[in-house]
C-alpha cells in the first residue's frame, strides 16, 4: 500500500489503523493507534521479541525510542490541516524507568507548530498514565 492510500483510508474512516498498516516497520512492531477523545494514543502490545534486557526483564531502549518517535509523528499528523508524513530532524529520548514486559502507550503534544518546523513532546507509560517510563522531545520538518 502507498502512504497516500493509508492517509486517504485513515481520513475517510477517522481510524488511524490503515495508516499504521501502510508503514512496514509499524506493522512489524505491531504498533496500533487509537483516537481517545481529543488524543491520539499509540499502543505497542507486548511481545517477547521487544525485550532488550532478559535479566530484568526490560524492553529494549531503542524500541522505547521508536515508540516515542511514532507517537510524536502520529500526534503531529493529527494536528495538521493537510496531513502528510513529517520528516524527523532529531529526537532526544529520556529514560525515566525500565520498560516492563507489558503493553506500552504513548502520545504526543505539538508544543509549537511553525511553517517549516514543528516541536513535539511525547510521553510513554504502562498501566498508570501518571507514571511515565520515558519521554522525548523531537523536531520535524513539516513543509
Amino acid at each position: 500500500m502507498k502512504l497516500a492510500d493509508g492517509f486517504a483510508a485513515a481520513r475517510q474512516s477517522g481510524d488511524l489503523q490503515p495508516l499504521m498498516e501502510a508503514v512496514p516497520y509499524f506493522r512489524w512492531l505491531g504498533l496500533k493507534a487509537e483516537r481517545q477523545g481529543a488524543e491520539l494514543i499509540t499502543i505497542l502490545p507486548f511481545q517477547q521479541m521487544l525485550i532488550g534486557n532478559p535479566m530484568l526483564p526490560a524492553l529494549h531502549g531503542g524500541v522505547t525510542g521508536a515508540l516515542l518517535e511514532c507517537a510524536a509523528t502520529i500526534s503531529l499528523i493529527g494536528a495538521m490541516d493537510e496531513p502528510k508524513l513529517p520528516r524527523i530532524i532529531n529526537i532526544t529520548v529520556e529514560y525515566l524507568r525500565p520498560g516492563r514486559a507489558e503493553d506500552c502507550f504513548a502520545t504526543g503534544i505539538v508544543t509549537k507548530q511553525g511553517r517549516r518546523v514543528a516541536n513535539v513532546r511525547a510521553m510513554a507509560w504502562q498501566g498508570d498514565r501518571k507514571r511515565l517510563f520515558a519521554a522525548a522531545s523531537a523536531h520535524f520538518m513539516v513543509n
Partner: protein
Amino acid sequence: MEYDFENMRQLMGEFIPHMAAMGLELLSMDDDGAVGKIPYRDEFVGNPDTGVVHGGVVTVLLDSLSGMCIVPLLGGMAKTATLDLRIDYLKPAVPGEDIFAKVHCYRTTKNIAFTRGVAYQGDIDDPIAHAAGSFMLTRS
C-alpha cells in the same frame, strides 16, 4: 579491562530477544568503540513510497551500541542505565543497504558515562545519523 568479545557478540546476537529479532550484529569492540550493523529488511521500512528505513531502526542500533561501548571501560563490572539518548537524523538511509554504526564512550565520571557515535552505510565520514547518550553507572 577483561571482557570477552565473542561472549558479547553472542549475547547480542542470541540472548537479547530484540537484537536477535532485528538481526543486529556486533562486529568489533575495543577502547576505540563498538561497531555493529543491522541488515536491510523490507519490514524495517518507514516510508513505503521511498523504501527508506524507519528512524526507529537506526535508534535501536545506536542505543544498543551506546550501551555496549561502555562495557570494556568498566571491566564488565558495572550496571548501566540510560539517562538519555539524542539522535540527529542527518540524511535518509539508502534503501536496500545495511546500516552500520560506531559508538564510543568519550568520558566517564564516578557516576556517569558519556557516549557519541554515528550510523552510516558506505562511508563513516558521511553518516546518516549522529547519537549522543548519557548513562548512569552503578559500580559493583
